[in-house]
């Protein structure tokens, strides 16, 4: 089964773009698709995917770091997809802190970001963008040509190797083109022996374990202090 990991900042249009790409993969390539949607607290995107005949499961990370939650579950997700005899499994996760690192070595890594997020955003996003194979830029229909060009240039500066392409999540313009890249994704029987492209954000301090009080006395574990000088 082919595996694609998709990540991107909240509200970039990940689901809309994936729905459009899925449409062409179903229609043109007759693929049987599955999506695992990772989110924090709640999501209603499951219905959107299911309406298109895509097998969907939702993973809510709750109070855990969504990235850690993702990687501890991805193997089971893969097994689920293989069990259901899917041709392609797409995982969709929101990069909530910009330091997210959800991409797996060997699996097609896609990052979706939007033109409205500001031209400095590509520099601010970490491994989620820098280690992606494909960067899909959305909301290109509402900004000027110049801004589109500058934004793509900034993405190029942040990730020099990726394929950069534009998809309009509303009209589907560019989805056919992007779906050709999804077709190239590698296949997996299992994720044994695989590793992340880069380490995930670290944690494990007293606050990870439910501490709510503020003050030095309550800070334990992996704590980092700002330099305010």
């Amino acid at each position: 089964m082919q595996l694609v990991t998709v990540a991107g900042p909240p509200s970039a249009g990940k689901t809309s773009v994936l729905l459009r790409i899925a449409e062409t993969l179903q229609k043109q390539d007759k693929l049987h698709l599955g999506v695992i949607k990772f989110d924090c607290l709640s999501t209603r995107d499951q219905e959107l995917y299911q309406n298109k005949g895509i097998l969907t499961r939702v993973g809510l990370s709750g109070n855990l770091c969504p990235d850690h939650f993702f990687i501890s579950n991805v193997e089971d997700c893969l097994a689920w997809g293989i069990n259901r005899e899917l041709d392609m499994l797409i995982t969709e996760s929101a990069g909530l802190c910009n330091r997210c690192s959800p991409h797996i070595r060997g699996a097609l890594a896609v990052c979706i970001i939007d033109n409205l997020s500001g031209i400095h955003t590509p520099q601010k996003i970490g491994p989620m963008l820098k280690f992606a194979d494909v960067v899909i830029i959305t909301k290109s229909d509402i900004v000027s040509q110049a801004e589109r060009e500058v934004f793509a240039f900034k993405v190029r500066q942040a990730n020099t190797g990726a394929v950069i392409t534009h998809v309009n999540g509303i009209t589907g313009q560019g989805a056919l083109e992007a779906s050709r890249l999804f077709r190239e994704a590698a296949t997996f029987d299992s994720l044994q022996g695989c590793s992340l492209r880069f380490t995930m954000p670290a944690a494990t301090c007293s606050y990870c374990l439910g501490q709510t009080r503020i003050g030095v006395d309550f800070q334990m574990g992996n704590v980092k202090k700002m330099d305010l000088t």
Partner: protein
Amino acid sequence: MRVGQILKLYPYAEDFFSVLPVTPNPKVTVTEFLLGIEDEVLQDLGQGTEDLIKRFNEFMRQMEQVKKVVDPIRSITIIGGQDKCGNAEDVCLTIRAGEIICIVGPTGSGKSRLLADIEWLAQRDTPTGRNILVNDRIPDAEWRYSTQHKLVAQLSQNMNFVMDLTVSEFLQMHAESRMVQDIDTVISNVINHANRFAGEQFSTDTPVTSLSGGQSRALMIADTAYLSASPVVLIDEIENAGIDRQSALKLLVDKQKIVLMATHDPILALMGNRRLVINNGKISKILTTTDSERRNLTILEKLDQQLTNVRNALRYGESIDRLPETLIGLWGEKVI
């Protein structure tokens, strides 16, 4: 090479260093500097040293690519495929640089798909089965995903400026990303042209987000003509927001752009050399603008000008008790 030397020879290297949390000493070499970054900083960055070195080399290579001038595009050829029912599209159309082609057809007829086929350089691999040639040849496959040499620039009525910058900062940024020589001249050219198109003047320190609709459109067109690398410009209507559309199109033509315009405004459509009529997913007719159409264009323009004058009268607080003779002549007897 030492960091200082690199920055002097390749100023854009600054963009690479500025995102790093540590500032390099100009006297050390790039490798020394990158090797010297502490592990903790690397962890925060989400990158390893080796990876950073690789990235730096790749960054410099890519930026050099931006500067590279590619073979100019002299023509684009559309070879027909089939319509939505599978009927053949019997078309082989070559469009040359500096030509304006209009695209007409009802909603859903396939105008956007035609534009998308051109942008994607379709090779019988889209629903229409069309083939697109560039300079009479099958284009390189790598062109499709190239950001530096994107074939098509787009302008539509729905586009707005969203950056929080003034006109001059904005143009500066665009020019830098294109690595053009002599930035100042280019910027002043863009502003002069945009102001000439817009009618209502704006200054270099106006924020781009507070330009009027007409001013924005005028600036977008002038900017595309001078600063966009894309040889094909797709225009989805240009609203008649008091801008001189004829001069705006002429600038694009002067800059040897191939202009494709989806419009149902007769004044714009008749400015084109040819019109493609799209129906049920295929190009069903290609009309060449005739001499009598051009004569009619002059009349339509005069009428349009008169309407514009009425609008301006309204804008400047005048009364609209009297209309121009020609406008009344059309309807006067019947209406009154």
